[in-house]
């Protein structure tokens, strides 16, 4: 046994080190372990190639663009020159009151909308978890339907529903004496928030529900034996155990909300006096790039926004992502 073991160890060591090349022989093959590691890593290649092409390269291009500016001269009709202006575009972006007003507007919206949506998602997941498997299955799909509807289609549906002229809500509420204008300055964030919640609650609920399903049922049984109420079980056992999932969907929501674009952009077609062209940071960036042709400045604003979103997500993650007790 001992001899065999020694022989195996020796063989393994030889394989790991690779055969010593004889003079004039073919080049050495890659060590077996390294070869396996490379093969394993090759499975990630499609992701990394996509990441490099569609994420890293655009960021680098945007960084380069943001360091230049187009300059005119005279009456402004001649050829423009592209000049290296260093961080001037970033300095301008940091002083751009419209851009930061948009950022503040969206941050306030996020501060209200995200906790509300998380709370709704959590409550729905807890309710679903409390049901029998058969009953839960009946509710799962209908609750997910809004998430299945393509975003633009969902926005168009709600634009129609909100329309004070052709939509059904305004005349319906008028029956009760309520004069609701969903596109007014006072109502626009509620209208947008409702749309965002409608679209995202189903998905968030599903993530939390999956996490709840993974929790061993014996824990709940023990708690019940100890006399804990269902409410106490939910608050003191279930919620802490799905905290990681809650953190994940909250971070995704922070990223998505700070970059909100298509919803207000389409709402703008209905209510341009309320939803201005720089209503949200991304709308401001889009306007500078594609309506006004200032790609360099738009690139700088994009980098600033990415840093803000990254910082906000990192701070939230740092504060909340603790292992469950």
């Amino acid at each position, binding site marked *: 046994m001992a001899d065999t073991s020694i022989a195996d160890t020796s063989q393994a060591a030889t394989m790991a080190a690779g055969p010593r090349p004889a003079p004039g022989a073919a080049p050495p093959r890659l060590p077996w372990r390294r070869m396996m590691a490379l093969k394993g890593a090759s499975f990630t290649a499609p992701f990394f190639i996509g990441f490099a092409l569609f994420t890293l390269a655009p960021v680098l291009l945007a960084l380069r663009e943001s360091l230049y500016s*187009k*300059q*005119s*001269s*005279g*009456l*402004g*009709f001649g*050829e*423009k020159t592209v000049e290296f202006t260093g961080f001037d575009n970033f300095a301008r972006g940091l002083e751009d009151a419209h851009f930061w007003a948009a950022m503040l507007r969206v941050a306030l919206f996020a501060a209200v909308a995200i906790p509300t949506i998380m709370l709704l998602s959590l409550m729905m997941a807890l309710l679903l978890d409390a049901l029998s498997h058969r009953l839960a299955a009946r509710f799962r799909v209908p609750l997910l339907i809004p998430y299945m509807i393509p975003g633009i289609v969902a926005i168009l549906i709600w634009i129609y529903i909100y*329309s004070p*002229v*052709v939509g059904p809500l305004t005349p319906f509420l008028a029956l009760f004496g309520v004069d609701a204008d969903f596109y007014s*300055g006072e109502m626009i964030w509620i209208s947008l928030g409702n749309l965002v919640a409608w679209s995202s609650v189903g998905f968030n609920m599903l993530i939390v529900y999956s996490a709840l399903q993974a929790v061993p049922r014996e824990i709940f049984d023990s708690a019940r034996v100890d006399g804990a109420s269902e409410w106490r079980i939910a608050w003191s056992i279930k919620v802490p155990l799905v905290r990681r999932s809650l953190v994940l969907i909250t971070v995704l929501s922070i990223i998505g909300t700070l970059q909100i674009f298509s919803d207000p952009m389409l709402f703008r*077609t*209905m*209510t*341009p*006096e*309320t939803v*201005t*062209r*720089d209503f949200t940071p991304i709308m401001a960036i889009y*306007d500078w790039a*594609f*309506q*006004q*042709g*200032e*790609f360099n400045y738009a690139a700088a604003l994009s980098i600033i926004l990415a840093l803000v979103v990254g910082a906000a997500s990192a701070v939230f993650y740092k504060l909340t992502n603790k292992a469950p007790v």
Partner: protein
Amino acid sequence: MNSKRVRVATCAAVVLSVVLTGCGGGDGGTTGKAEGPVTIEYWNWLEAKNVDPVVAKFNATHKDIKLKFVKQADNPGTQQNLRNAVAAQKHVPCLVQNFGEAPSLASEGLAQDVTEELTPYLKKGLFAESALPSARAVDKYYAVPGGATPPFMMINRKVYDKYGVETPKTWDDVIAAGKEFKKHGIYIMNLAGEDPSTLIELVQQAGGSWYKIDGDKWKIDFLSPESLKAADVIQQLVDNDLVAHQTYTDRPALINYFDSGKMVSLPTSTWQLQNYEREYKKSLGNWEPVDRPQFKDATEFVTPMHSPTSGLIVPKGCDHVKEAVEAAVWLNTSKDSTDASYQKDTKQYTWPGAIPDPSPWVDSAVPEKLFGPRKSEARGVILKSVKAGRDNWVAGPNYTGMFAELQDQWAKVTAKKTTMKAALEHMEKWTVADLKRKNINVDG
């Protein structure tokens, strides 16, 4: 080399060549130097049924130049696509329907100077005088002029008669009529929150211009007497709640509203009439064409005939400027082009706004039912407007950005979040600062 490595190397070479081909050069086909007729790619967002017959007529009557129409989704989509094409200098079309003020597009590096190629046609007198300023800055042309459609007003005669309100002749009359209609829950006009063109047309009608060239620098004047006179009309309409604010983007809701009789005066032009004829259900026959209201101190009858989007631009990157201009001149001024634009369903031609005498096409611009028994009045109203057309408007090099900023200010005015005068003061500061930031000479 072992066969496995050869295979890997071959695959890598193929992938690389495909990728590099995709990322590499290439040309839109409009700038090539190949033998045979020159193909001019033409971008426009009009419906294909309007453009295709005109392009077919051009191609049938020209041997050395061929037009290739590429339908664009809309005005903003055209802007975005052209900006991308010019920035990349690939697939640049040679003719594009103008989507902003041509001098501003030239300043952005999108439109070429076509003065040299256009001059022979100008000397022939093919264009109406009022069509030229929109395409010109200082003494250079940055678009082939397309001219404007004649502005006038149509009023809902049935509602006017019902409440005994006189046809407004001046803007003061409009405000007075608005106050009368307000008593009955009716709005005199509509001011869409996204479109400040009513203000701009009033400033033009008053003889003002926000941009002027003073030697080698720009002079910006949003607070001129003409501008403030126009602003005062708007302010009174808004302050007294005399106007509706229906958006143009929700077309069904807009038409439904116009058709309802709750809004009774509509500044309009020839190109819109057939649409109203087709879309109105209740108010067909109730409308009457009337002259555009004037300022009460006006010394002569004037209509604003500046049209920022009617010309055709030749983008930077197109090598066939001469051929592109020739095609554009044919499209905008030839009888063949106008005749080919006839639409059987609407019985209408594209309005030939660029030519000195569009009178042969006036009758076809007037629909059958819209004006009911007052249809015959339309010809006189339209031709009077054409004759009174003026264009003193000057577009500066940052007009595109200025207009976007003005849209936001206008939205605030219509929502009563600011006043028209405060908005103009803001615009003056914004425009001067923007020009300075772009290193353009400006007074102030």
